[in-house]
């Protein structure tokens, strides 16, 4: 019997609305919309027409959903479309002037492509959320959520912060998509089991913090994803009807091709984990060893100015930008088809080699890999599902369906780690980013110490909620990630500091509980016009603050 195939796409961008446009700011989300989100909608529509059952597990982080439904995003994207079309209008003359006649066909390709996307944007009334919701209701995708702003949960100092991220995230998903999600994309697949906590000497030592799964359970999530090495690290136990019976036999241990129950809770609904398959996922995401490095695909890094058009192919990953050859969409399309065939055979091979008890190949990726980083990635997905429909080998299902069809029979104690470089937390906690944590942790303390008093004062609610927004926004894992990669470090630093300062400006009112708060209310309202996701946070703050300290 063939294994199931769970393709999971995790879509995320930090809050960039009202915080600049180019080179860093709202252009990020516009690029992602044109490169990935709208093509993904087109893919779903195509598969709907073709009658291909291709369930995709689609994660949309709450902060991304909040932006996609924000009026500012529609305005920005309309302007972005207009700019791209104007660029395309001007490109032929510009290319002729520079003597690049051989690139003129690529301009025509881009015009057709952008006009197609614009037609899709119009057809869905500029509402990506509604489009995804439509496909979810039709069963083509299963929507999952995440922490509200993609906070790096294991490094947050207060359990209340972790809970707020998850509670606010799940509630925002409900507000946007009309249904509660069962699955959670734990940001960066970053997990920490129960135990002592002090990631840096400056961190407040805590001798026993509960594991991330307990917070997920509290927030109502039922399952999440981890990288394979986290599953490898822990001890396994056999589960029967939700109860742990005994230690697992060696053959039942830690295959990445099955889901597990996380830990052994004495009561409460167990939380399950799906394990990322290292073999198949590397084949896709690696630019050097994987498909996207094929010479026929569109080169991401070489951009023509003025206009910002990408007109060249990868040619050779080691080639200088000057040696890149003109892009050939037909050849690239052919490459995507061949890679889809190859990937299908790879899945088939993994399935054929499955052990007794294995149930699924779980392949999670950043959604933006497809279309944005790997331009032909969406075509690849289409070709892949056609291949599977034609030849079988694996059975595509959503993650939730997998867990309903094949409930885990083994419990695992997971190790600590993430899906980032080195498999640990170092991409987010390193000498370049230590200062961010050292600034965040005391702010967490101040907020949660002030919250109970502020919750008892209904007149302070707008200030408390805005402080919570700033706390959430400054917790986005993106800031540390960007600082570490160095690509837009100044922007990330600026954003992190701005949210810290905004929170710091609100905290004194919450801490001192003065009766005259008119000025603070006006200040909070002004901040909210800029940093305004998650309209109602009071209940989530109350629920997050109910943490047992024992």
């Amino acid at each position, binding site marked *: 019997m063939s294994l199931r195939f769970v393709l999971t796409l995790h879509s995320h961008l930090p809050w960039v609305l009202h915080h600049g446009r180019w080179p860093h700011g709202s252009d990020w989300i516009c690029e992602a919309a044109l490169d990935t989100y709208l093509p993904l909608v087109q893919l779903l529509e195509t598969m709907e027409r073709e009658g291909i059952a291709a369930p995709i597990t689609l994660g949309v982080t709450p902060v991304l959903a909040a932006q996609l439904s924000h009026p500012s995003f529609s305005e920005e994207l309309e302007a972005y479309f207009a700019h791209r079309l104007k660029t395309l209008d001007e490109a032929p003359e510009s290319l002729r002037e520079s003597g690049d006649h051989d690139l003129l066909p690529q301009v025509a390709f881009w015009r057709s492509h952008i006009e197609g996307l614009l037609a899709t944007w119009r057809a869905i009334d500029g509402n990506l959320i509604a489009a995804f919701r439509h496909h979810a209701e039709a069963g083509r995708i299963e929507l999952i959520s995440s922490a509200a702003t993609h906070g790096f949960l294991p490094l947050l100092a207060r359990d209340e912060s972790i809970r707020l991220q998850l509670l606010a995230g799940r509630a925002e998903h409900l507000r946007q998509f009309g249904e*509660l999600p069962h699955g959670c994309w734990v940001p960066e697949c970053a997990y920490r089991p129960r135990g002592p906590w002090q990631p840096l000497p400056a961190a407040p030592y805590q001798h026993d913090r509960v594991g991330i799964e307990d917070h997920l359970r*509290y927030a*109502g999530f039922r399952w999440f994803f981890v990288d394979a090495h986290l599953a490898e690290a822990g001890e396994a136990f056999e589960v029967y009807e939700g109860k742990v019976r005994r230690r697992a036999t060696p053959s039942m241990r830690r295959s990445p091709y099955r889901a597990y129950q996380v830990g052994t809770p004495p009561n409460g*609904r167990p939380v399950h984990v799906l394990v990322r398959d290292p073999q198949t996922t590397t084949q896709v995401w690696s630019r050097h060893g994987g498909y996207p490095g094929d010479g026929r695909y569109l080169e991401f890094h070489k951009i023509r100015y003025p206009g910002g058009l990408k007109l060249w192919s990868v040619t050779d990953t080691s080639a200088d930008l000057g040696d890149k050859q003109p892009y050939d969409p037909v050849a690239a399309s052919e490459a995507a088809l061949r890679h889809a065939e190859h990937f299908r055979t790879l899945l088939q091979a993994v399935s054929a080699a499955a052990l007794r008890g294995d149930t699924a190949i779980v392949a999670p990726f950043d959604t933006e890999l497809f279309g944005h980083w790997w331009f032909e990635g969406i075509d690849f997905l289409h070709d892949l599902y056609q291949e599977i429909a034609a030849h079988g080998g694996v059975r595509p299902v959503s993650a939730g369906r997998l867990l309903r069809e094949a409930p885990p029979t083994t419990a695992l104690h997971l190790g600590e780690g993430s899906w980032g470089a080195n498999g640990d937390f170092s991409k987010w906690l390193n000498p370049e980013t230590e200062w961010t944590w050292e600034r965040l942790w005391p702010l967490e303390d101040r907020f949660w110490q002030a*919250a109970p008093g502020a919750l008892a004062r*209904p007149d302070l609610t707008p200030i408390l909620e805005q402080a919570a927004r700033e706390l959430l926004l400054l917790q986005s894992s993106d800031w540390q990630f960007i600082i570490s990669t160095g690509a837009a470090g100044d922007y990330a630093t600026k954003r992190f500091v701005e949210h810290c300062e905004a929170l710091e400006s609100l905290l004194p009112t919450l801490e001192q509980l003065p009766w005259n708060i008119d000025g603070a209310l006006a200040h909070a309202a002004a901040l909210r016009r800029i940093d305004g996701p998650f309209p109602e946070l*009071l209940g989530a703050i*109350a*629920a997050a603050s109910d943490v047992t300290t024992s």
Partner: protein
Amino acid sequence: MSEPRSLALPTIGGETPTVVHLSAEYFPYARTGGLAEAAWGLHRFQDRGGLQTMAITPLYRTARQHLRHLEPVGDPYTLYFGDRAETFRLMRDLDPASETPTCFIEHEGFFDRAGIYGEGGRDYPDNHRRFAAFAAAAVAALPRITSGPVLLHAHDWHAALAPVYLRTWWRGDPFFDRIPVVMSVHNGGYQGHFGPEAMPELGLPWNLYTPDRLEWYGKTNFLKGGLMYTDVATTVSPSHAVELRTPAGGFGLQEVYQWMGERFTGVLNGIDLEVWNPVHDRHIAANYSRGDLLGKAACKADLQRRFGLPDDANTPVVALAGRMVTQKGLDLVIRNHALFQMPAQFVFLGSGEQKFEDAFAQLRAAMPNRIATETTFSDALEHVLMAGADLFLMPSQYEPCGLTQMRAQHYGTIPVARRVGGLADTIDDGATGFLFDAFDDRALLGGMWRAMTEHRSRQAWLEMQEAAMLRDFGWDRVAERYSELYTQAIVHRAGRAG
């Protein structure tokens, strides 16, 4: 009703023991709280499970109203409490309609009164003598019930002197020496403590007035005495057993519970699934089941109509019912402005402390379209509430067991409760209800917010209702667990006697 599970006990001296319950309250003869139903419910299912059983309870004036076929068992008998002689009769109920074999201790002076524990809001001043007499008379009556071995199950402080008398007055008598005793603490806050001068009136020697027997902070403590002499003790939930071992939750007896070690444990009470069952409940507008919840919508509409609330299927109805007293955590409700900002309707049923009745009346006056109150509690109305509400609120300070949350889950009504005692043990947080930890307004608000969030998703709510209705809160499970504890008591007694 499903076939009862068969129960078995080890033999004592080659014979199967008769289980004898001693309880000051017993349904339907005398009932002020949960004790009467708990003792009756357990007994009934033990009887159905094939055990030889008997209940002994005082013959109160209220009990006589229910009894038409009483017959004396043997002649009157006299016991001496110090220099006072008290004469009793053991009476047996022979009504074929009675579900459980029951005997009564007749003593007109002590029990033929208007109240059970007191009148006019005051306890009877001779309660120590009344319940000491009940306990001693019941032990003395055991040979009249059976010539074979007995296992004694004493409930709460009123019966707690039974093991004391058993191990002192009747010590050395082979019939009594081999009797194992199980004590159940239904509410550890009620212990029956009296002045030291009570000791001679109880007929107990002063050498029992010591910290390792009945003395407790300068008083005579019935419950402590019973725990010191029993073989095994239980309370009404595993979490409450943990709480009773702590200074914060032990009501001053935590060291006794700690000392008992594994001989003290928690066992949840059950609910009567014949009475509390939406499938055939006659008090509700429409019957329904886990597989077909359509009738629950009709029950909700009926509830809204009865309580004068707008008929609105989408707005969740939050119910709170029972005694309106501080222990139930109502302070967290009446002052919780944010709670009443939530898009919900609230129904409060019951009476109690005046400040709560007044507060609910004020809330109703301020928000008549969203808040309804009824101070006249009735079983029928509780059924209506249980079936029609979406959520049941239980923010208790402490709750040894609690039955409301079990009934609510059986009716697909999701409890929002504080994580204490039996609430913690019977509500699966996030799966069949919602629990909050801190005893404060914000924690209650947080729990309610989680519930309201879930309610907004039709599918998630349905799954939660079905999971709640699937929970097994019947007495079968409880009776099986008690059989295990009886076995433990029998083994413990055999070891002591040997």
